[in-house]
Every structure is written in C-alpha cells, then in structure tokens.
C-alpha cells in the first residue's frame, strides 16, 4: 500500500506542484495512512499470536520473543506517527506504552510480574499463571475457586519472592550454603545440618514491609469472612511439590493457628524445607540450593464435620473406571496420613455417580480444632461410630467436584475435601494423583489401539483448545438447551457462542460447524481448557445426539466410541498448557490482546485507560481520525483542502476532505452534495452506498429505522460541540479515496486509487467488528467474507477482522468494485440486529448478490473485458 500511496502522492502533488499548506496536509495525511497500516498489522500479529495458543502449532521461545518484539516495535511506531499527527496532545501514551513494554520484557526475561504486592497474593487474584510465585498448592486451590467456582477456604499466598527477601534480609543464603557444603563434605550429619539451618530460619526476623503486607492480607481476610479473630491453616506450597517431584507430606502443615502466630508459623513452615528428608531428597534429585523457594498457603480453617480424600481414579486399578472416596468424622488429617480407619466408597466416574461399593468401619476417634487454637483427638459417641459418614447426595457432590477438577487439570486428582457444619463442601487441596507407573502398563501401543475405532471425521476444522475427551454428543440448538446440558457430555453446535460459558464446567468437549479460533468462545475454551474444535463444517450433520464419541483435539480426529486408552494416554503426557513456553505466551498475551477501550464516548476513553497494546491501538485509531478532521479545521482554515460536510439521503454524517481535484471547483459552502464529487473511487462508493436497497432494508418499522439512524450517526448533536463532527471521514482526490467509517460499533476502512494506469489501481477494504455481541459480529464478518470472495476480492478473515483486496483492474471494473463496497457497507451496517442465525448468512449472501446484480443491470455495467 505504501508504494501505491507514493505513486499517488507523486502523481497528485509532485508533478503539479501545489502550494505549501496543502503539502503540509499531505504529509500529515501520509502519517495518517501509516497509522492505518500499522493498525492493521498489529491486529494481524495479535491474531497470529492468539492462534498459537490453540495447540495446532509447534512454536518455541524464539517465536514468543520475536513476535512480542515485533508487536512492541509496531505499537511504538504507531505512537510515534500518532504523536506527529497530534503533537504533545496525548503524550501520556508514551508512559503507558513503556510500562506495558517493561512488563512484557520482564515476562520474557523470566521475571513474573506480580500485581499488588511482591510478598502476598490473595486467592482472588491468583491464577495458574502465578504457579511459580505462589507454588502449586496455592495456584491449584485458587483456580478451583476462581475458575471452577467450587468452595475453597478463603486465604492468601505468601510468595516465593517473600521467601527470597526473607533470606536476603537476614543474610541467610551464604550461611545456609556454608552449612550445606559442610554436609556435602560429610563434616556434618543430615540431622545436624538440618537442625542448624532450621534454627537459623526460625530465628530470622521479618522485614517491616513484608510484615505490613501480611497484616493487610489478614485484614482483608477478616473483612471478607466477617470473622474477627482468625484461625488459620498454614501449609507449604513449594515449587514442584505437587507435580512430578513428590515432596508430598514432607513439609510442615500447621492447623488451627491464631492469626497473631502467623509469622512464626510461616518461619516454621519455611524451616521444614530443610528437614533431613527434604535435603536428602533434593540431593538425590540434583536440585540446586537456589531452586529452593517455598511459598506458603494461609487459609481460614473450615469447621469440618466430615473430611476425607477423593481419588478421582482408583490408583490401584486405574482401568476399573471408578473413583475412591475415604471419609471420617472431624478433620481429615488422620485420613490423609493414614493414621486412622475411614469409610471407603467406590463411585462410578460417570454422572449420576452411583455408589458401586462401600466399606463402613468403626470410627472411634475424630480429630477436631480446639477453640483457642491447635487440634486434638476426641472420642466419637457410640451411635456415630458405625454410622456411614456420607449420604448419597454428599458422595455425589464430592464426585462431581472431583470430575470437574480432573477435567480441568486433564489428569486424575488426589483431592482433600471437608464438609462443614452447614453441609457445605469445601475443596482443601487438589494435586495430580501419582499413577504414571500404573498408566504406563495400561497404555502400550496407542496407534494400534486407535486403529480399531472407526474415524468419524479427521482433519476438519480448527483446533481451538487441545486435549482428549470422551462422552455422549449433546446437540445445542438454542440457549434453552444449555439448561439441560448433562455433566460430562460433548457439546455439538452449529456455531460457536460465548453463551457456552454457561456449561463450561460441565462440557467434556466442544465441536462446532462454524467458528474461528480467535472468537470469544475460543477464549472460554482455553480458560476452561475444554478440548474444542470449530469450523468442522459438518459436525451437526454427522454426529447424532447421544452417540458416544472420542475427540482427539490434538490430532484433530473424532472417533466413534469411547477410547479409554486414548484418555489414559492423555494422562501420561504432560499437558501442553503446562509447558513453560505456553504459560509464557499466555502471560505476555494478557498484556497485549485484551480490549478494555470499548466506548469512545466513555469518560475513561483516554490514554490512562489503556492497559494493553490492543487498547493503545484502538485508542490511536479512534483519535487519529478525529485529529485529521481537527487538524484540517484548525490549522488550515483557508486552505483548499477544507473539510466539508456531505449531504446524503441516507442518515450518515460524512466529512469530506478534498486534497486535489476530488470536488468540483468553486464550491464555497461548508456542505456539499454528491453530484459535486469528482473523485472517481468516492463517487462509485457513494453510488453503491445509496443505491436502492442497500441502505434501508425492508421490513423495518419506523421506530427501528430511527433507532438504526441513531446508531449510524456517530454523535448526538447536543452532546458534542459542532467542531467535532464524528468519525466518518473521507479524504479524496480526483483518483483517490480513503474512507473511514464507524457505523455503530464497527469500523470500515476503504482505501482506493482508480486512474488510467491499470497497474496502479487498487481497492483495499477492511472491516473490524466492535465489541457488542460476538456471535452476530462473527456472522457478519463471515457474511462479508463470502460477499467479497464471490466478487473476486482476495479475502483474509481473522476472527472478526475481514480484509479484502483487489487490484490491477481497468477503471470501469474498479469503479464497479467500489460501488459494490458501498453496497456492502450499507447492507451490512444493520445486519448485527438481524442476523439471528447462521442460516441467514446464506440468505443474505443471496439477497446481496441479487441486489448487486440488479444494480449492475440498471447501470449497464456488465462484466468488463480486460
């Protein structure tokens, strides 16, 4: 496009040599054009990066680094040009940009950016992205609360950063290393070395800043629980503790401790990182001293009536397809440590989770929290001793939660739970069940197993979220169907919908006929890690309700039947999302893609409201158009390139800036009519836009029409000073037009040159959906895609960004294409409201074709022979 522009600029101005003021405007317009190009480029790179999360690509660190840097450079350049257009007006953008860039660079350098405080993170703001900072235990329990919506104890994490700063503040590193060296050299026994280090840690002092952060977190906890004096469980949440390196049970867990003892408890838990066992274990596994970084979980105590453990798959017999629940009265510690007998239930892994076997034992003691802190064993009264401690309903609740957690983490789980006095189930801890060894015996040769199952379809559609799932097909045709969605079913639908969020906790997988990998639903699938394939084109036709299928959304295959082995195979793999690179990409994208700057009339629509690169890009785009109008108005009141308001039959406020020969001479009014336009591409565009049928479509009630007209007028006259006349702008010359339209919440940009040199001719059309109702938006994008493709445009569809290009046609045919774009803009502006279903895309395409043909015939513009 830049080359074309140069040609155009040269043709228009160079040769004919216009006066200074106009040249100045041209250079500004040039800047404006560059801004539009950058804007496009940024959106494209953003879409590409988002695609990589789907799992269909193999990418590496280099990709993340280079695409982030590319993005940063593009945004930087965008701001640079914008500053040239609006000098010093939005200088705050520079600072915002820098801070986003610093955050991204920090992430790329491997330093996680922690919001709020370095020392403490409340559960509400923890996600799996912070696992390195808060440890596995905290990250898991916080995700179970925040993402899955299950009850967990309120609490906060003391971070690994706090651990490091505690060591630094007390100068422990060198001392601990010295002791460890002596131990390595066999000068000290494990016990002696351990005691020295533990004593050292327990005597350490807490930095005032750290202490304040903890006090603040406690205050917040008192506030949200309404408890005046808290009793806490303080547990280790070390890195790697819950994953492949099983330190399970080796670190200290303190129960029911008064809040004033928290910091001492904290030190005691830290010290347990240097128990003789932990030291020995790390030595064997080759951990370095620097890798010890313990986060700590601080949780409110649950007043447990019944507690226990759930294995979501029986570890002793994984192929038996059952879960195992152990339960006892009181707190669960004795069950976890295996110190006491517990009731044992085997439960089906499928809804409604029938109990398949039970073993009720005599429970003579229960472990309970004492009123003033600490815990003790108490005798259980005779009649309760032999009573089954869970009802069938409670078993179901636990089982359902267990399967939900397993589905989310894509791995069988070892879950600690408790039921309180009010019969509320709380999840206390969840970690992967250690069954890799058993699994490897079950799965031997995966390709020979899958060969036995018929493939229903493969290689169709786009993988949005990878993973493996089995289940029964459940067709969703309307929102009402979502209310009846069975737990563990596979959602099959014609189109993607953000409303599927409603069943995100229940669906084992999602398959749709149409959709894109960048839509809103894609985000939901990824957040909930639901294996998802969209755009298969045929799922609803081929799959039958109730049919049992297996979706392998890693290889993009749907099999008939339930391939258990494939699921087990999935358990064996470390999930793709668990890799460092994947998490890194997710984290950097959080600084890049979310769009918060939605409404240009919102009072927060200013530089300081920008949180991401997308926000900056959106803001710059909006303001650049506004600036161009203003610049022209303010700086060149007498220039020929003056803004004029175009009078149109249709309700569209459009400002025209003529830079050379786009309008008939000797017009001296601030308003012009269409017949005064000489610009070839602009004239054709307007012809199409105002052609019968393209702007207002029947049937439409009067009220509805006026509603639409209020949408397409970009401002209300009483709200905005007359100086700011909206964002619909066309910059034209005799052969050129650049048209920016904001209709409702979406953008159209058309850039075209039509002259006698066929090789210079081009038309570029860009459509970007707004932020309202993502489904209809994507339908409209799809419609535009189809309409443009059918009319020989080279089209690119990415999410709801549609780009159409056509070039090197003779002037007549180019004019025809411009008229078509005009029709298309007019036609689509209201489709948001009308596109209630996907079938309508086809209907509208036909209608639009008819319209375009009719218009063609009346104008006698048949196919031009090149």
């Amino acid at each position: 496009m830049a080359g074309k522009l140069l040609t155009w600029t040269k043709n228009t101005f160079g040769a004919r040599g216009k006066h200074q003021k106009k040249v100045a405007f041209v250079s500004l317009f040039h800047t404006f054009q560059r801004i539009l190009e950058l804007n496009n480029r940024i959106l494209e790179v953003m879409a590409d990066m988002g695609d990589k999360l789907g799992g269909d690509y193999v990418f590496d660190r280099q990709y993340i680094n280079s695409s982030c840097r590319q993005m940063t450079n593009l945004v930087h350049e965008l701001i640079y040009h914008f500053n040239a257009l609006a000098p010093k007006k939005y200088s705050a953008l520079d600072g915002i940009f820098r801070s986003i860039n610093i955050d991204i660079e920090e992430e790329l350098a491997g330093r996680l950016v922690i919001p709020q405080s370095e020392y403490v993170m409340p559960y509400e703001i923890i996600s799996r992205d912070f696992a390195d900072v808060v440890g596995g235990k905290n990250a898991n329990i916080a995700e179970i609360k925040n993402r899955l919506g299950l009850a967990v104890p309120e609490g906060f994490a003391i971070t690994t950063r706090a651990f490091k700063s505690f060591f630094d503040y007390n100068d422990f590193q060198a001392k601990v290393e010295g002791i460890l060296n002596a131990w390595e050299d066999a000068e000290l026994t494990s016990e002696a070395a351990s005691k020295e280090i533990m004593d050292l840690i327990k005597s350490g002092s807490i930095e005032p800043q750290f202490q304040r952060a903890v006090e603040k977190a406690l205050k917040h906890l008192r506030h949200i629980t309404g408890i005046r004096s808290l009793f806490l469980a303080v547990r280790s949440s070390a890195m790697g503790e819950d994953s492949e390196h099983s330190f399970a049970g080796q670190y200290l867990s303190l129960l029911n401790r008064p809040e004033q003892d928290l910091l001492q408890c904290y030190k005691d838990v830290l010290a347990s990182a240097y128990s003789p066992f932990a030291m020995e274990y790390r030595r064997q596994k080759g951990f370095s001293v620097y890798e010890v970084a313990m986060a700590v979980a601080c949780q409110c105590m649950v007043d447990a009536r019944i507690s226990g453990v759930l294995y979501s798959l029986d570890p002793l017999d994984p192929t038996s397809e059952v879960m195992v629940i152990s339960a006892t009265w009181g707190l669960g510690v004795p069950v976890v440590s295996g110190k006491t007998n517990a009731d044992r239930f085997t439960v089906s892994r499928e809804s409604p989770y029938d109990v398949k076997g039970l073993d009720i034992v005599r429970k003579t003691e229960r472990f309970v929290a004492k009123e003033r802190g600490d815990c003790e064993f108490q005798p259980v009264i005779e009649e309760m001793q032999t009573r089954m401690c869970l009802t069938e309903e409670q078993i179901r609740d636990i089982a359902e939660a267990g399967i939900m957690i397993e589905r989310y983490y894509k791995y069988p789980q070892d879950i600690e739970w408790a039921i309180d006095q009010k019969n509320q189930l709380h999840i206390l801890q969840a970690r992967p069940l250690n069954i890799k060894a058993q699994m490897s015996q079950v799965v031997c040769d995966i390709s020979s197993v899958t060969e036995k199952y018929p493939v229903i379809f493969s290689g169709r559609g786009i993988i949005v979220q990878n993973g493996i799932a089995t289940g029964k097909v459940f067709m969703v045709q309307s929102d009402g169907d979502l209310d009846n969605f069975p737990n563990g079913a596979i959602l099959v639908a014609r189109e993607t919908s953000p409303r599927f969020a409603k069943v995100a906790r229940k669906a084992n997988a999602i398959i749709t006929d149409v959709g894109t990998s960048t839509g809103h639903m894609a985000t939901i699938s990824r957040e909930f890690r639901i294996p998802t394939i969209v755009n298969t084109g045929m799922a609803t036709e081929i799959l039958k309700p109730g049919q049992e299928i297996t979706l392998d959304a890693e290889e993009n295959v749907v099999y008939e039947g339930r391939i258990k082995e494939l699921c087990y195979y999935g358990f064996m793999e470390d999930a793709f999302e668990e890799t460092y690179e994947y998490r890194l990409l997710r984290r950097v994208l959080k600084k890049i893609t979310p769009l918060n700057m939605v409404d240009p009339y919102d009072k927060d629509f200013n530089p300081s409201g920008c949180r991401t690169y997308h926000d900056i890009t959106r803001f710059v785009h909006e303001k650049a158009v506004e600036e161009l109008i203003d610049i022209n108005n303010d700086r060149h009141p007498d220039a020929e390139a003056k803004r004029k308001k175009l009078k149109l039959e249709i309700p569209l406020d459009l400002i025209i800036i003529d830079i050379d020969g786009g309008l008939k001479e000797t017009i001296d009014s601030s308003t012009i009519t269409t017949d005064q336009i000489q610009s070839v591409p602009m004239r054709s565009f307007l012809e199409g836009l105002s052609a019968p049928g393209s702007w207002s479509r029947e049937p439409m009630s009067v009220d509805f029409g006026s509603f639409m007209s209020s949408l397409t007028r970009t401002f209300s006259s009483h709200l905005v000073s007359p100086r700011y006349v909206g964002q619909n702008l066309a910059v034209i010359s005799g052969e050129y037009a650049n048209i920016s339209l904001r209709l409702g919440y979406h953008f159209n940009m058309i850039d075209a040159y039509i002259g006698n040199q066929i090789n210079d001719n081009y038309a570029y059309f860009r459509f970007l959906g707004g932020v309202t109702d993502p489904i209809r938006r994507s339908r409209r994008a799809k419609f535009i895609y189809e309409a443009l493709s059918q009319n020989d445009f080279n089209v690119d569809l990415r999410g709801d960004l549609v780009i159409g290009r056509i070039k090197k046609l003779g002037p007549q045919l180019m004019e025809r294409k411009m008229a078509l774009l005009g029709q298309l803009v007019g036609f689509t502006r209201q489709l948001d409201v009308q596109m209630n279903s996907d079938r309508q895309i086809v209907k509208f395409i036909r209608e639009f074709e008819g319209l375009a043909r009719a218009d063609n015939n009346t104008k006698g513009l048949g196919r031009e022979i090149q």
Partner: protein
Amino acid sequence: MSNGEKTTILILDDEAIVLKRLGPALEKAGYEIEVFSRSSDASSRIMEKNFDIVITDLKMEGLDGMQFLTQVKERSPGTEVIVITGFATMDTAKESFQKGVFDFLAKPFKLGEILETVKKAEKKIKQAGLS
C-alpha cells in the same frame, strides 16, 4: 522399518514445549519416538542406534544442530533428517540442504505440516529400500 516394524524417529530440541507437542503427536501417528532435549544425549544415542528419521532444531545450547546432523549423516547416511528451527535464514537452509537434509521447517509450524513431511521422508526411505 522393514518387516512391518515401526519407523523410528529421534527428536532433538532443547525446548520442552516442542518435544511435548511433537513426541505424542508422532507417537499417536504410529511412529516409534525417542525425544532428547540435550544434544550430547542425542549424540551418544545415535552412536548406539540408527534411526530412520531424525528431527532436530538448529540452535541449541551445547552442540550445534548443524554439527549434530552432520554426525547423523556421517554415521548413517540412510537416515533422513528434518530440520526445525526458529531462526530460519536462507543461509542456514542452504547449508542444511547441502548437508543432505530432507526438509527444513521454520517454527512455528502446524502439526499437520511436520506429519506430512515425515510421511514424505518415510516414503523416500521405503523407495530406497525397494530399489
């Protein structure tokens, strides 16, 4: 590979994400896979066993991928080597083709692309075996 045995593939890449994505995908497609994140380990492995196909990154810590594929080709000329790299330049591509590399894929690539490339390499090996 003959006698209905599985095609054997060695994958070397120092980034976990590549191995975790590629290993299972190829395994499920019916190949026998060994993955290595350290070139020294992969190097000693090819001294013990000839693989049908080797997939390797070019830029890694320690031994250079180019050196590694040279070793592979020297040791077992029949092994087809597929290069995957995030730093694709014309020069590196040219150099690897000169060294007899079967194909060259720039990261990021789609799983389908590498599967296709592997299939082509497999076909070539089979044809070589027949002639």
